[in-house]
């Protein structure tokens, strides 16, 4: 049940959610027994009204905008793995690699469902997925779904970009216990995906020295992705809030440039991200 899922999600970050909604837990129990008989399409409206009442106000438009942005990107990522897994078929090595792609595919699909549920619960209409995407990015990656090497390379770029995208908009969710915590939770999972894809590329010998974290700037081996590692605050940045990381003491000298860039991921603005994914048909 989506309604139960969203309440569970909220309860994780707001243990008082049930009390907020109703000071009488019995009333909640009644609601659930009633809700189970309500048409599924009616639920988001019902829960949205409940949440508005619980938090005393409508969800700010800025919060909705960030959630829609996240859903826009998750739709694309989910389709990338879904279509890619099908198209590549046996080109994906059986065993661990095949399982890994399915795990990430399913994870992205869950993010889509989660964000749709949260946005509906907040009283808005979730943005729809595009009917078609151009996974070759206008011909830049012509073998994206016919070469496993290209597929993983683009996957790395997309995951790293996704991590940067969430980070770039966290500030718009400042203090939003439910929404910021959820966004950070997805952000961390995107980073886990990115690390895994990078490790797979290394183990498969596609990029033997590649690390699970971003070393310097564009370490993907994909020159077309330079922009995904650049931006107003590029991945090469070592100035963190006025602290120059390479001036800090490490072991056997200061923190190295590689370690300084690896240790901090950098944000991308919405405009930067949307420009980067536009060739894929994402908007």
């Amino acid at each position: 049940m989506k309604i139960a899922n969203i309440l569970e999600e909220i309860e994780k970050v707001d243990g008082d959610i049930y009390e907020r909604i109703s000071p009488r837990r019995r009333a909640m129990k009644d609601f659930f027994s009633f809700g189970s008989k309500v048409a599924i399409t009616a639920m988001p409206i019902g829960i949205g009204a409940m949440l508005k009442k619980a938090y005393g106000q409508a969800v700010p438009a800025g919060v909705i905008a960030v959630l829609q942005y996240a859903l826009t990107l998750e739709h694309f990522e989910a389709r990338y793995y879904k279509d890619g897994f099908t198209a590549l078929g046996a080109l994906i090595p059986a065993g661990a690699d095949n399982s890994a792609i399915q795990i990430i595919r399913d994870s992205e699909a869950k993010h889509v469902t989660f964000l749709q549920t949260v946005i509906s619960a907040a009283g808005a209409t979730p943005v729809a997925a595009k009917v078609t995407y151009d996974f070759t990015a206008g011909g830049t990656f012509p073998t994206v779904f016919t070469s496993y090497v290209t597929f993983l390379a683009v996957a790395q770029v997309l995951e790293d970009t996704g991590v940067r995208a969430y980070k770039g908009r966290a500030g718009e969710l400042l203090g939003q216990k439910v929404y910021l915590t959820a966004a950070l939770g997805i952000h961390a999972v995107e980073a886990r995906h990115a690390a895994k894809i990078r490790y797979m590329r290394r183990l498969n010998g596609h990029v033997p020295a590649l690390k699970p974290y971003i070393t310097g700037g564009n370490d993907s081996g994909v020159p077309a992705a330079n922009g995904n590692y650049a931006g107003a605050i590029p991945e090469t940045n070592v100035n963190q809030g006025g602290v120059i990381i390479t001036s800090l003491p490490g072991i056997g000298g200061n923190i190295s440039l590689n370690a300084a860039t690896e240790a901090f991921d950098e944000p991308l603005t919405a405009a930067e991200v949307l420009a980067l994914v536009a060739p894929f048909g994402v908007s």
Partner: protein
Amino acid sequence: MQTTKTSNDQVALTDERIIQPVSRRRFLGYVGATSAILATGASCNKNNNDDNNGVDLGSGDVGILNYAYALEQLEAAFYTQVVATPFSGITSAETGFLTDIRDHEIAHREFFKAAITAAPATAIPNLEVDFSSINFTSRASVLGTAMAFEDLGVSAYDGAGYLLKSATYLLLAGKIVSVEARHAALIRELVTANSFLGDQVDASSVNISRTPPEVLAIAGTYIKTKINASNLPTG
């Protein structure tokens, strides 16, 4: 420092960083007077504390930064020991990764110390860690602990983000948490293939989060210094 007898190792934290990991057993052996050492340790701790309730993390955003600083101190101390006394059978790839992670955690630790000082505010002192439950000669023990620390760190940052009032600090925390998540995924893969998400995500594939009290209760096993988190914001 040898790879033997490491299960009782302690890491001594000195002024700026760990100068050298010291076996507690050996350290006590050198000095020879256990009771004297304990007395000295007690007085040192007392000097570092504002009161008898332990090291005070403080309040507001600074409190959260000190909270992160405490966790980064723990991680940095752990990986420093791991690299100094490699587990038996360690591969060159593992040495490379663990050395990278050590340097990242030291960068995080030193960053927080500098950022808190620049706030301007008072950074907590160097914490005394307790790694007596870790067998540094054992791959399973080391990587199992590394996994626990990384997963804990991710859930800690994710769970404390909303407590920050400054967007600048939130962004800085965000820059670090995704790297901790990358570490977590890597360590998990070194332990078990395809465990990069594992039990760290919920049914919606959202990373779990933990409150500061939940995190400190878990981390407390490895931190000898008493920490007072009572002034942290709670939302």
